[in-house]
């Protein structure tokens, strides 16, 4: 069992919901990012590695990635930044598009993630058909594999995808890119149910969960939530204190 899964299972069996905020590496600046990695409310933190062409991301996270790159933080610098942060605090997992992995080599990329103390990997543009070899390298380096399931995934695909998970299953709540939304998609609970049929692993809802109310609602069926744009927006526009307050609000809503 991966360290990430073991930890999430312990949260689950304690009767708590899992909270995974998303941070863009180095945003709004290196020090603030590093400080936020230590936040106590999170059960794990998803760290976005900046990429030039973030297909899955809406305007907020895309702009954050552009800012990081403008500050000289590429995907490999981002890994180093996480590696240089004080140890302890929530487990960290990396979210990266595939090309930086392809460029460096799958094996070497996984090794670097593990060396930086990172516990899991999410690659949103690598479908299950293309992920065999990367999953293997991830496994060798103790990285949990976190695949995404979409509202349009057939039952057959959900089964195939869920079977690859070694951390949790990321249930995409809505069609579209990351972003802050007015309301939680009514599809959210259906995706979670589809995942439940296919796996006993924790299922977290992400993409389009933006408020404490939405987090509460999503967690009524799921084991927890991933919150990206709403976190990054506060980091970019308001700074550390606002992000920490937001984390407390989410934690309170999730119980």
């Amino acid at each position, binding site marked *: 069992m991966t360290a990430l899964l073991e930890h999430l299972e312990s949260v689950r069996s304690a009767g708590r919901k899992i909270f995974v905020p998303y941070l863009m590496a180095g945003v709004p600046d290196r020090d603030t990012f590093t400080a936020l990695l230590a936040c106590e409310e999170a059960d794990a933190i998803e760290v976005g590695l900046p*990429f*030039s*062409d*973030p*297909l*899955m991301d*809406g305007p907020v996270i*895309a702009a954050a990635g*552009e800012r990081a*790159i403008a500050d000289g933080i*590429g*995907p*490999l*610098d981002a890994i180093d930044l996480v590696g240089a942060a004080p140890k302890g605090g929530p487990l960290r997992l990396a979210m990266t598009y*595939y*090309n*930086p*992995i*392809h*460029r*460096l080599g799958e094996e070497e990329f996984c090794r670097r993630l593990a060396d930086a103390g990172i516990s899991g990997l999410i690659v*949103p*543009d*690598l*479908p*299950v*058909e*293309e992920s065999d070899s990367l999953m293997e390298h991830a496994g060798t380096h103790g990285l949990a594999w976190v*695949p*995404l*399931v*979409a*509202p*349009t*995934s*057939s039952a057959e*695909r959900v089964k195939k*995808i869920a079977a690859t998970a070694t951390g949790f299953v990321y249930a*995409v709540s809505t*069609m*579209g*890119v990351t972003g802050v939304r007015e309301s939680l998609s009514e599809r959210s609970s259906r995706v979670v149910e589809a995942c439940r049929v296919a796996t006993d692993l924790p299922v977290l809802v992400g993409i389009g969960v933006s408020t404490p109310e939405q987090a509460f609602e999503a967690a009524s069926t799921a084991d927890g939530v991933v919150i990206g744009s709403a976190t990054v927006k506060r980091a970019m526009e308001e700074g550390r204190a606002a992000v920490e307050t937001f984390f407390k609000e989410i934690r309170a809503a999730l119980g």
Partner: protein
Amino acid sequence: MIPKVDKLGRYGEFGGRYVPEALMGALGELETAWTDAWAEGGFRTELNDLLAAVVGRPTPLYDAKRLSERVGARVLLKREDLAHSGAHKINNTVGQVLLAKRMGKTRIIAETGAGQHGVATATAAAYFGLPCVVFMGAVDVERQHLNVVRMELLGAQVIPVTAGSSTLKDAVNEALRDWVTNVEDTHYVLGSVVGPHPYPEIVASLQEVIGEEARRQCLQMIGELPDEVVACVGGGSNAIGLFRGFYDDDEVRLVGIEAGGEGGGGPHGASITKGTPGVLHGARSLLLQDDDGLIAHAHSISAGLDYPGVGPEHAALAHSGRATYESATDAEALDAFGVLAETEGIIPALEPAHAIAYLLRSKPKGNILLGLSGRGDKDVETVAAALLRAKQ
């Protein structure tokens, strides 16, 4: 070796389908719909009727006598500039919108660089009475303004994209984002032989008509096959369409011309001659990137070649040696633009002007077939400004 697409959408080691899970269903649906339609006589007949009535096919093969004198070889131009709306792009858009209709889609989206694909998509959408949204990099909105006006006149909504380099690459990203969001009722008409499987194969199949016609016309006109076939390569659709007509003719050299941009060590769009393997816009191919795997900003004076990637079939052709690739710079293309206008009375688009530039520079021997992919009305302002700068 001729690259043939396999079940996973690969041409040798290139191609594939690297997209978010949310698009996998739609790509599977598109693949099935396309395979069925393409195998079916009814679709092909309807398409061929449209290519004749709407596009004006076959386009002429033109004996460029005065240009031939300048080059020192016989040059035949395949006149895609005379296709309706001014470029080869319409061969693809008419076919894809016809397919979208069959699939019951009610909204059309597209990306565009030079604006030619946007205009061609807007034209096809207007013909079929479907609403159309075109994503275009803000830099391109500026430099291809004429085409923005044309798209709007044709009833399309043009959305400027300001992310990244604000050019074609970023317009593709934005179109893909729209598609993920609206995939149920929307068909994304991709404009070149790029993107996730089955797009490269769909676009190449719809552009094959260029090579089929050109081969036949060439045999009719000169009684033999050309010695060399030359076309410009952005994403690579006009070149693939032309090349596919000659894959089995081993003695015919296939030459693709990429954007050399500023030349020297400056920025360019030459992803085959100077790129490395990587994954962009859903396919593994050759592309311009840095050591971290961030995609580089391409540069070309022609918006249609200003793209850091290339279709996987070209990467496979280059790999196998069946086709060779060279580049021409902005300055060479500008010069060639003027030469074709003066010698033949044809104002070409800046994209195929790169192919003309290659002829003027390398002076190949024998009979040369050149894909004149589009006309240059859209580029007149860019060229005037460049000439003015050169004078100062």
